[in-house]
C-alpha cells in the first residue's frame, strides 16, 4: 500500500516555515558528522550511477564501433572501460547499503531523543493540561507523529536530495554531450513536475478517503464484536450485517477511485519516457546524420532519460510525506511548548518541613476552584483538619469531593485561597515531597506489568521487613496469601488479573508502604466482593491509626468510623459533624442515609 503519511483532520504542514525547520535542525545538531557522511555517500552513489551510462557510451564510441583501431587494442580498451564500470557498480552497492543503515540510525536516534523528551515533558505537565487533551491524541504525538517525522528523515529527505542531485547530474552530462538535444529534453522537467504535483494531490485525497473508510469499518467491527451478545440477544444481526455491507461497499467504491488515479499516473509517466525516446531517435538521429552526435552519445541519451523518469513515480508520494511530517513536527513542538501551571513558589524550608513530619495538619482557607471561568467546581471551602483526625467526605457525584483531594495533592492549583499542609502552602513544597507525604488510594489503580512486590515498592527502597510489618499490621497477609505465588505473583497485562476489591487492597498496601503522614482514600463506589471488603475494612482500621485521614466514603461503616463527617453539595461544604450529630437534625446527610434504606 502506498503510504502518504499519517494526517490529523487533513492538516498539512507548511514547507516554508523556517522556524519549524530550525527546531528540527536543533535535534539533528549532534549528528552533524553522520549526516555529513550520508551526504557524502549520496554524492558517491549519484556520481557512480551517472558514470555508468557515460562509461557505456565511451565503450561504444571509443572501442566497440571504432573501426579505425586494431581489434586487440579495441578489446583491451573495452576491458579497461569494463573494469571502471565494475568498480562503479561495486561502489554503488556498498555506498547505498551503508547509507541506508546510517540514515536509519541517525533518524531513529533523533526520533528516540525527541520521543523521550516529549514523554518526559508530558509527565511534568499539570492535570489541567490532560483535562483539555484526550489521552489518545497525546499518544499519537508520541507514536505516529514521531514516526511521520522519521519517515521524512530517512526515506524522503535523502532520496529527495539524491534524486535532485541525480537530476542535476543527468542534465549536466546531457548538456556536455549535445546541448541541442539536451535543450529538447529539458521540456520534460516542467511536464514531469506538473504531472507529479497534480497526481500527488489526487493520490492524497484518495488515500485519505480509503483510510478513513477502513477506520470506520474497523471501529464498527470492533464495536459489533464487543457487543455481539447484545446484538444477538436483541436480534440485531440483520441490521449489523447491512450496516457493515454498506460500509464495505463504500470502501470498495473508494478503492476504485484510487485504482483510477494510480492507473492513470503510472502509464502517463511511462508515456513520457517513451516520448523522450521517440524525440531522441527523431531529433537526435538527425544530429547524428549531421555528425553533431555520435551513436554512443545517442545511446547515452536514452539511458540518461530512463534514469530521469525512474524516481518520478515515487516523488509524489514523498512530497506528501514531507507535508504531513511538517504538520506532525508542528504538533509535536506545540506540545513541547505547553507549560505546566504549577510553579513552585519560593520560600520553602525543607528542614522546617521535615521537623513537622509527624504532624499532618491540613488547612483549606477560602478555597475556590474552577476549570472554566463561571463554572465553579469548589467555592468557599474552609476546612481545618487536625493531626490524626479521620474525616469522611460525603455527597453525591459531582459535589466536588474528588476535586478537593486533587487540590490537596496539588494536581491543580486553586483559583483563589490557600491550602496548607503543616502550615506550609502546598505551592511552596516540591511536588515529589508533597506527594510523598500525602498518600492517595484511588478507585482505579495503575498496575505495572510486574510482580506484586514491585507494584507495592514502586520507586521506594526495598525493605522486606517493613513490608512484612505493614502486611502484618493491616491483616493484608491473607490477601497476599490468596495469590498463587504470594508477593512474587506477576500481575498486569497477560498475567494474573486482580478483581476490583483486590486492586483496592493492593492500592492500600502501596500507599502505606510510602509511609505517608496524610492518607487519602477514595472508596470504591461499585460493589466489591465481601471477602475483600472485610479485609479492606480491617486494613482501614489499622492504616488510619496515627495518620490524618481523608475518606471519600460510600459505605456507611466507613463513614461511621470517621471523627468528623463533612457533607458537600454543589462544590460547597454544607454540613459537618459526627454521625450522631448529623442524624439528630434534619440534614442532607440524614436523608442520604435514609435513602440508603438502612433503617430496619
Amino acid at each position, binding site marked *: *500500500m502506498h503510504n502518504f503519511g499519517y494526517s490529523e483532520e487533513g492538516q498539512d504542514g507548511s514547507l516554508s516555515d523556517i522556524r519549524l525547520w530550525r527546531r528540527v535542525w536543533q535535534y539533528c545538531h549532534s549528528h552533524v558528522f553522520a549526516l555529513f557522511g550520508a551526504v557524502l555517500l549520496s554524492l558517491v552513489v549519484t556520481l557512480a550511477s551517472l558514470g555508468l551510462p557515460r562509461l557505456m557510451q565511451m565503450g561504444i564510441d571509443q572501442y566497440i564501433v571504432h573501426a579505425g583501431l586494431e581489434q586487440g587494442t579495441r578489446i583491451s580498451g573495452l576491458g579497461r572501460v569494463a573494469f571502471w564500470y565494475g568498480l562503479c557498480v561495486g561502489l554503488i552497492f556498498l555506498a547505498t547499503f551503508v547509507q541506508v543503515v546510517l540514515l536509519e540510525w541517525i533518524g531513529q536516534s533523533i526520533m528516540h531523543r525527541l520521543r523521550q523528551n516529549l514523554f518526559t515533558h508530558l509527565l511534568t505537565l499539570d492535570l489541567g493540561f490532560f483535562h483539555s487533551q484526550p489521552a489518545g491524541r497525546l499518544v499519537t504525538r508520541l*507514536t505516529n507523529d514521531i514516526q511521520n517525522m522519521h519517515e521524512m528523515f530517512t526515506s524522503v529527505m535523502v532520496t529527495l536530495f539524491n534524486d535532485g542531485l541525480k537530476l542535476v547530474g543527468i542534465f549536466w552530462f546531457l548538456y556536455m554531450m549535445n546541448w541541442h538535444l539536451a535543450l529538447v529534453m529539458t521540456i520534460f522537467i516542467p511536464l514531469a513536475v506538473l504531472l507529479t504535483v497534480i497526481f500527488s494531490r489526487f493520490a492524497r485525497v484518495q488515500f485519505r478517503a480509503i483510510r478513513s473508510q477502513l477506520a470506520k469499518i474497523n471501529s464498527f467491527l470492533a464495536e459489533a464484536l464487543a457487543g455481539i451478545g447484545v446484538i444477538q440477544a436483541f436480534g440485531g444481526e440483520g441490521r449489523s450485517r447491512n450496516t457493515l455491507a454498506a460500509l*464495505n461497499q463504500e470502501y470498495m467504491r473508494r478503492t476504485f477511485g484510487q485504482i483510477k488515479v494510480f492507473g492513470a499516473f503510472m502509464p502517463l509517466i511511462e*508515456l513520457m519516457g517513451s516520448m523522450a525516446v521517440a524525440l531522441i531517435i*527523431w531529433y537526435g538521429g538527425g544530429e547524428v546524420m549531421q555528425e553533431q552526435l555520435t551513436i554512443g552519445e545517442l*545511446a547515452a541519451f536514452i539511458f540518461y532519460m530512463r534514469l530521469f523518469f525512474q524516481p518520478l513515480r515515487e516523488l509524489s508520494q514523498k512530497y506528501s510525506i514531507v507535508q504531513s511530517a511538517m504538520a506532525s513536527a508542528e504538533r509535536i513542538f506545540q506540545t513541547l511548548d505547553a507549560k505546566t501551571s504549577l510553579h513552585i513558589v519560593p520560600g520553602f524550608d525543607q528542614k522546617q518541613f521535615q521537623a513537622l513530619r509527624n504532624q499532618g495538619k491540613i488547612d483549606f482557607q477560602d478555597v475556590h476552584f474552577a476549570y472554566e471561568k463561571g463554572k465553579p467546581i469548589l467555592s468557599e471551602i474552609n476546612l481545618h483538619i487536625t493531626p490524626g483526625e479521620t474525616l469522611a467526605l460525603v455527597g453525591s457525584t459531582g459535589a466536588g469531593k474528588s476535586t478537593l483531594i486533587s487540590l490537596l495533592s496539588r494536581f491543580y492549583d486553586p483559583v483563589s485561597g490557600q491550602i496548607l499542609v503543616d502550615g506550609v502552602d502546598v505551592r511552596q513544597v516540591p511536588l515529589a515531597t508533597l*506527594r510523598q507525604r500525602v498518600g492517595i488510594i484511588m478507585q482505579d489503580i495503575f498496575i505495572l506489568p510486574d510482580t506484586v512486590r514491585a507494584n507495592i515498592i514502586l520507586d521506594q527502597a526495598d525493605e522486606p521487613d517493613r513490608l512484612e510489618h505493614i502486611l502484618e499490621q493491616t491483616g493484608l497477609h491473607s490477601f497476599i496469601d490468596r495469590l498463587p505465588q504470594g508477593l512474587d505473583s506477576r500481575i498486569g497485562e497477560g498475567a494474573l488479573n486482580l478483581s476490583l476489591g483486590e486492586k483496592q487492597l493492593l492500592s492500600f498496601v502501596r500507599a502505606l508502604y510510602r509511609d505517608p503522614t496524610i492518607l487519602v482514600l477514595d472508596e470504591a463506589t461499585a460493589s466489591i466482593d465481601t471477602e475483600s471488603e472485610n479485609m479492606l475494612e480491617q486494613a482501614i482500621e489499622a492504616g488510619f491509626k496515627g495518620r490524618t485521614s481523608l475518606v471519600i466514603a460510600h459505605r456507611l461503616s466507613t463513614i461511621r468510623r470517621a471523627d468528623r463527617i463533612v457533607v458537600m453539595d454543589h462544590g460547597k461544604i454544607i454540613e459537618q459533624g459526627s454521625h450522631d450529630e448529623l442524624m439528630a437534625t434534619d440534614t442532607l446527610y440524614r436523608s442520604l442515609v435514609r435513602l440508603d434504606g438502612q433503617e430496619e
Partner: protein
Amino acid sequence: MQDVSGSTSPTTIPVSLRTLLGLIGPTFRRHWLRLLGGFIALVVVDFLQLIIPRFVKTAVDSLTAQTASQPQLLQLSTMILLCALMVAILRFSWRYLIIGFSRILEQKLRDRFFEHLLRMDQPFFERWTIGDLMAHNSNDMATVQMACGMGLVATVDALVMSTAALGFMMAISVKLTLIALLPMPVLIICTRVLSGRLHHRFNLVQEQFSLLTEFARATLVSVRLIKAYTLERLQENRFSELGEKYVRLNLKVATVQGLLFPVATLVGNVGMLLLLYFGGILVIKGDITIGSFVAFVSYLYMLIWPMMAVGWVANIFQRGVTSLRRINRVLTQEPIVVQPPFQPLPKKEQYTYTCQKLSFQYSEATHRALDGIDLTIGPGLVGMTGRTGSGKSTLCKILLRMYPVKDSMLFFQGVDVNDLSQEDIRNNIAYVGQEPVVFADTIAANISFGRPEATMDEIQAAAKAAAIDTDIAQFSGGYKAVIGERGVKLSGGQRQRLALARALLCDRPLLIIDDALSAIDVETEQQVLQGILAKMEGKSVLLISHRVNVLRHADRIVLLDAGKIVDQGQHQDLLANPFYRIMVEKQRNDA
C-alpha cells in the same frame, strides 16, 4: 444431540489448498470476463513494450550504416509514440480490471466473514479474541487482496515479459543472453530470502511499536496515579527501554532493506557490465550489430523487474495463502448451540424458564461453573446473589442460549431448549449485561436497538422508566446526541441505565439484569427499580445484584455459591443464612 465438550480448538488440522481456493474460486468464476480482459491487456502491453526497443535498434543500425533519412527516423519515432500510447491505455485497463477484481474479492470475503461472525456463539468468542478477528478483518483481507491483485498481475507480467524478452535476446545472440543472465539467479534467491526476512523483522518492529503505543497510552491515561505516586522517573526509564529496543529492531530492518534494493541494482548492473564487455567483443568481431547491442541493453533492463518479482511474488502468495487459511479457520467454525430441526414454540399466557439439575462446565475449566441448578423463573421478580465466580453470569448467558447445554436440563415453556430455535427463545428475553454495551450511535438508536420501529414516545417512556430521561435532556442534542469518542461520554451509571432502557423498551416477557445496577447511585437505584417493577408487572424478571436494598424487593432471593443454589427464599427467610446475614449487616445502618 448436543455435544458440549466437543468444541474444536483454534489449532486445527491443515487445510488443503483446494479447500482454500474454494473460498475465492466462485468470485473468480463470476468475474472471469473481467479477468480475461485484464490479462489480455496485460499481455498486449508486454509485447508492445518489447517492440519499442526493436524500433530503436532499427534506427541505430541505419544511423550506423549511414542509410538513415529524416522521414525514416520520423516514421520510427511515430511508431514508438503510437505503441507508447497504446501501452498507456491498456495499462490503465488492466489495472482497472484486475486490481479492481481483487477489491471486489476483498469486499465479498469481508461481507461473508462478518456474516459468519454474527452467527457465532460464546464458546467461539472465547477462543477468538476481538483483536484476532480484527486482524483477520484488516491484515488478512489485505494480504489476500494483494495476492489476488498485484500478485497475479506480477506473475503473469513477469512470465510474459521474461519469456518474450528472453526470446528477443536469444534471437540476437544466444551466447550473449546466457552471459548477461549469469547473475540473475542470485537476484531471485536474494529477493526471496531477503523479502521473507524483511517481512519477519518488520513484524517485530510492528509489535514493538504496539508495545510502545500501549505503554504511552497506559501511562497517559493514568497520569493522575503516576503523579500521585511520583512514578514519573520510573515510567520515563521504562519508556526509554522500550524506545531503545524499537530503535534496535528498526536498525535490523534497515540492514535487510539496505541489502534488498541495492542487490537488485547490483545484479542488473553486473549483467550490464558483462554485456558491455562480452557484447562489445561480439560487436567488434562483427558477430552482432551495434543496433542489436543497444536493443539488448533495453531488453536486459526489462528483465530486471520480472526477476525481482519472482522472489517478491512468491512471498506475496505465501502470505496470501496463510491469510486465507486463517480466514478459512474462522469460516469453518460452526456454533454448537444451534441444532435443527426445531419445534415451534408453544404459545402460552405465562412464560416459564425451568432449569432441571442444570450443570455446565467451561471447556478449559476443571470445575463445573454450574452444578445441579433447579430453578424456575416464572412471573415475578427473582433476585439472585452470591460472591464473584459463583456462576450467576454463566447462568444468565446459558438462559440467553449463548452456551450449549445438554439435553433435558433447560426448558423454555416446558420444551427442551435444544429442540427450540435460538431466535424463538431470545425473542422473548430482554437482557442487560454486567458490562453495559452501548454503540456509537444516537441515544435514541441505542435505546431502540431491540425494536427499531419504536416511536419517539415509546423511547422516551423507556428512558423515563430507566431514570435516564433527565440525563438525556442535559446532553446537547438530547435523544439525537451521538455516543462515543467524538460525542457524548457516558458515565458507568448512565451506560447501565441506557442499557436498561433498551431492555425495557423491548417489552419482552422475561427480563434478565446481570448486576447491571451496580454503578447507579443509591438515590437513583430505587427509582430505577420502581421503573422496572412497573414495566414488568405480571412478567418475569431475573435480577442479579449485590445490594440488599435491591434484592429485598424480590419475591424470592436465590443464593448461589460455587455453582450451586445454597439457599432461597424471601428477604426475611434468608436472614437466617450466615452469608446473606453478613451481607445485610455490612450494608446496614447499625443504629
